[in-house]
């Protein structure tokens, strides 16, 4: 018992050590770019911006660690009216000297796949790094939530045990502090969507911080889809008061309502746009800062800069953990607010004409 409690007290130190080792390990990733370029007999300096952008953006190849066994060549699935559906490994796009070649009439044009004959882009449905991360996130979400639900069913009336005891306070916090006060009476209708949203963004943010992981919630397409879902749910459930406030704003002289109308219509769209950009920028900028600090080691080429930058990366990673949780909370909070505003019952009928 005493050994266990000593271990528990050491956990914060162990976590810091863990994050420190991970940040150093992440730094070693710059090696393959350098080694490969030296093989190609080009005097290549370490291009920090290219490495950073490559780590933050999506890719068909997943570099877990250096060496041939550390790269996963994800499948490419393309469809075009000329050639139909084609599925092949992205390994075919790279020859033995790690240069890009064309394959079977397709070539890599920047990050898009284009036909070699006409140069136009094809419909790219491949499993890229971000898609694979999204699937991993979905599986993790299903496993964790189902085990919490099972635990709740088995332990009903008793104290929660295991993973249920970790997630139940979080679920109750979202229900009691975020959803119920903002939505009001009909909160149970929207609770599944909001809880899924919160845990999806939280797990996506945290998974993106692991070394070798893809940047899931830092992809503007992912956050755009989440914001569009919120937009659809808000506007489908908007009641008469919501729409009348937009198109025929009460409390104003009748001619001014036509002036306010375009502003209100733009206001419908700025809400999901702000949700999209807020989550995307917070996560991507955090990743870029961490990668830039690691790249400092390779720009200076000195081991003391490496030690210093690893300590800085440790602290910035702790801030990023906080940002991961806060951005998930803020997205869910704003979604709950927008839904609440859309379905609010009007109590103040007296100051309308």
């Amino acid at each position, binding site marked *: 018992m005493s050994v266990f409690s000593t271990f528990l007290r050491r956990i914060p130190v162990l976590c810091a050590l863990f994050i420190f080792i991970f940040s150093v390990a992440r730094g070693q990733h710059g090696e393959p770019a350098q080694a490969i370029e030296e093989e190609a007999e080009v005097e290549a300096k370490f291009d920090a911006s290219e490495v950073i952008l490559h780590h933050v953006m999506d890719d068909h190849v997943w570099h877990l660690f250096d060496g041939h066994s550390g790269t996963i060549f994800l499948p490419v699935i393309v469809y075009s009216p000329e050639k139909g559906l084609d599925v092949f490994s992205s390994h075919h796009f790279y020859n033995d000297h790690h240069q890009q070649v064309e394959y079977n009439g397709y070539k890599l044009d920047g990050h898009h796949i284009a036909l070699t004959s006409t140069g136009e882009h094809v419909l790219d449905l491949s499993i890229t790094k971000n898609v694979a991360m999204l699937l991993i996130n979905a599986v993790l979400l299903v496993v964790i939530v189902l085990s919490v639900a099972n635990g709740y069913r088995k332990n009903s009336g008793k104290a929660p045990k295991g993973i249920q005891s970790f997630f139940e306070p979080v679920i109750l916090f979202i229900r009691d502090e975020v959803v119920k006060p903002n939505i009001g009476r009909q909160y149970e209708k929207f609770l599944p969507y909001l809880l899924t949203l919160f845990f999806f963004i939280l797990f996506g943010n945290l998974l993106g911080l692991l070394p070798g992981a893809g940047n899931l919630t830092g992809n503007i397409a992912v956050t755009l889809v989440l914001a569009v879902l919120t937009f659809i749910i808000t506007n489908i459930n908007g009641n008469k008061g919501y729409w009348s406030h937009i198109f025929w704003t009460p409390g104003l002289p009748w001619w001014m309502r036509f002036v306010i109308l375009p502003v209100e219509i733009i206001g419908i769209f700025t809400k999901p746009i702000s949700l999209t950009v*807020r989550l995307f*920028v*917070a996560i991507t*900028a955090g990743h*870029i800062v961490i990668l830039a600090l690691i790249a400092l080691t390779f720009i200076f080429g000195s081991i003391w800069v490496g030690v210093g930058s690893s300590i800085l990366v440790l602290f910035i990673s702790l801030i990023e953990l906080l940002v991961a949780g806060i951005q998930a*909370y*803020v997205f869910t909070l704003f979604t709950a607010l927008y839904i609440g505003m859309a379905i609010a019952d009007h109590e103040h009928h007296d100051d309308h004409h």
Partner: protein
Amino acid sequence: MDISYAIMGAGIGAGLAAIGAGIGIGKIGGSAMEGIARQPEASGKIQGAMLIIAALIEVAALFALVICLLISFLK
């Protein structure tokens, strides 16, 4: 005009964004300190609200940072 002017502008823009974030979060921190000094028993709630608002302001500064980064990667 040289591309170097654009990159210099990006650097200045990133610095201004940092100033904006610093002022904003500084004001939040200042009011949070005052609130905690007045009412130490509310310090938990004030700290929680301060962290969340700081994250929102930081995102606004990061908007500008991302645009400056995009400019600095021009060829």
